[in-house]
């Protein structure tokens, strides 16, 4: 459980930093008037959608941190047998990185109001993401064909579980990406600036989400590849 505790400590540190800027030392009983600006930061100027996504990512992050926690706890038991990782995972990792880069390029295009750039960027991100999911499916089939899909193999069960949950998060993201893309193709250069602004916001949200998914996947990948064994061993040492 050390992983989730570390995750919570990081969140708590962020929350503490944020709260420290909110005038927690104020003495509200002494202050009257529209004192908002004087005693505490007013609500952030960011759009509510970004704050909402940030909060959602904290929740999803907690979900993945718990999965990683459970995984590393189980790895610590003496009867753990690792799986040989299918090579195709390297390709899907590359595809996911490309997808994230494509969305970052889309954000840059959106900030310049280049509709063509937005459209091609969204398309590229969608295609690479679908290819990533296909790669994951191939990895699943490869492992199943090699006979690892069995009840008594916790390593296989964990592999399927973490990749499935990550993939489901990506599917949810793809649904939003699809809606953003249809809007991008409906708009024209002559569209109202508000519509373009909303499209830009959607693109930025998608990019943030994809970077998050990439980060989570890199963590999961390094765990599955057993690069983090030493780190986990150190963490375990801290506890005992």
């Amino acid at each position, binding site marked *: 459980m050390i992983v989730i505790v570390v995750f919570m400590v990081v969140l708590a540190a962020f929350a503490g930093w944020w*709260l420290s800027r909110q005038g927690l030392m104020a003495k509200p009983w002494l202050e009257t008037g*529209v004192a908002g600006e004087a005693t*505490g930061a007013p609500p952030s100027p960011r759009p509510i959608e970004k704050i909402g996504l940030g909060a959602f990512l904290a929740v999803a992050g907690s*979900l993945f941190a718990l999965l990683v926690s459970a995984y590393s706890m189980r790895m610590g038991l003496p009867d753990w047998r690792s799986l040989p990782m299918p090579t195709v995972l390297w390709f899907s990792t590359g595809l996911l990185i490309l997808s994230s880069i494509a969305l970052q390029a889309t954000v840059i295009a959106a900030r310049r109001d280049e509709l063509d750039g937005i459209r091609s960027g969204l398309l590229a991100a969608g295609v690479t993401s679908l290819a990533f999911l296909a790669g994951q499916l191939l990895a699943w089939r490869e492992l199943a064909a090699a006979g690892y899909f069995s009840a008594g193999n916790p390593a296989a069960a964990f592999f399927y579980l973490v990749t499935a949950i990550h993939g489901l998060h990506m599917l949810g993201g793809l649904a939003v990406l699809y809606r953003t893309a249809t809007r991008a193709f409906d708009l024209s250069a002559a569209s109202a600036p508000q519509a373009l602004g909303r499209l830009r916001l959607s693109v930025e949200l998608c990019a943030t989400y994809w970077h998050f998914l990439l980060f989570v996947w890199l963590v999961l990948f390094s765990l599955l590849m057993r690069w983090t064994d030493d780190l986990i061993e150190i963490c375990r040492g801290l506890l005992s």
Partner: protein
Amino acid sequence: MADVTHGTLPPLSASETDDVELYHPHSWITRYVFSQDAKIIAIQYSLTALAIGLVALVLSWLMRMQLAFPGLISFIDADHYYQLITMHGMIMVIYLLTALFLGGFGNYLIPLMLGARDMVFPYVNMLSFWIYFLAVLVLVVGFFVPGGPTGAGWTLYPPQAILANTPGQQWGIIVMLVSLMLFIIGFTMGGLNYVVTVLQGRCRGMTLMRMPLTIWGIFTATIMALLAFPALFVGAVMMLLDRLIGTSFFMPAIVAMGEQLAYKGGSPILFQHLFWFFGHPEVYIVALPAFGIVSDLISTHARKNIFGYRMMVWALVAIGALSFVVWAHHMYVSGMHPSFGFFFATTTLIIAIPTAIKVYNWVLTLWRGDIHFTPPMLFALGFIVTFVNGGLTGLFLGNVVVDVPLSDTMFVVAHFHMVMGVAPILVIFGAIYHWYPKITGRMLNDAMAKLHFWVTFLGAYLIFFPMHYIGLMGVPRRYHEMGEMAFVPPSTVTLNAFITIVALIVGAAQLVFVFNLAWSLRKGRPAGGNPWRATTLEWQTPQTPPAHGNWGQSLPVVYRWAYDYSVPGAAQDFLPQNQPPDPQPA
């Protein structure tokens, strides 16, 4: 009052404040059924939670009947008894308390107390309720599937939760896990709304440190729930896979009924860690909104500003943070390393510090206050006493050496019913008596309210006080029948019968409350806009009940904190948060 007055501005017109785009319903269905108005959603949440809570109340009656008069109700055998305790616990903790505090009070109070027109994502908010409703339906379906609901206990510990011979192993456990997953998804949608609304939806002048403590409590609890529920979700998914496709996340190699099962290599302790990583914060997810609400009730009904507002806020946040590092105190008897037990006992006892600060502050708020024994105040006082009681036995159980012998006895049952059953429920009642006039425009009947309070409060003590002694005698929990046990003296049998009779009476007294809710809707005394002469914004709405959009033409502007009661020289003894300060002489 010593004013440090910052530039006082004239009220802003609506055009100058950042307004939310409101969704306007066009039909009866979108107005009252698939409503996106947080106030309607709040009522939907509350009624659903209260309805399923009544089911859980009846289940507890049946349990008590079995404990006091074994065999009197013939259909309660061991299996049914386990199903009763499981469903009673699960419904009360999750589907009633969590849903009512966050979904019910959160939805109603957050926008109104913060001067917002609605939640920031109304559509998601609507989905949140309907997924919760679906979760409740799925839960209820569990009663009717072959084999009945699961009887694994509300903690659903594997391996027994999914082994044959545990009641409900066939369908009940599946239905329960699916229902929990739905609940978590629905709650996450609502929770994101509450958090972002508190962060971004506040009206002008409403700094964080001017928010009423109710909002602080709900806000902190929501953040905790958002981070803790994923642990239950992960546990539920993994257990569902163990049950459905035979993975071995939690299932060790096991011989059942003389047969070696296909499972091997799972870790039941892993589930306990995941479950309690959710389960302990859950206690505070229920308690923190209660803390917040009770602070406001006491301050309003004692006409006194809350003592130590800042300390109250810090304590809420500190309790929220600490509650994430105490989960293993539920697992002292799971065979953990003794130094773990020491660590978790220490963190557990540290929580007593911020909690005690809160209790002192409530008492000091009452000190020399102008206490009105209105129903909300009675319930708030009842809460303080009960919470202190339950908290003190918590100090016993937080220590490993005391917990080990008391573990799995009725003492534990008495402890957690006091601290997270009776105490929060008293706050819920108090809060309903307090805000019902705003929600419906009419007062609840006072005589019925006081009858309801005294029977519930005294009854709860008659039920749970003796239960501690039964536990100290060594009577184990989760036994459907004691049979002949040498160490159990006959007096405990009498005591059990007494507890059951009181439980029946207290349960029946809740019908007075339900009747009062219905009766006062039409016959109650008209309340007016602000019957309690309260300062917070929800009492300052132009209409009562508040209309769609809450605030008419322009949003309120906040000039002061929420606790200006008994202000010397004020026209009415209190100053609403949106009352501008007197112009200062130049």
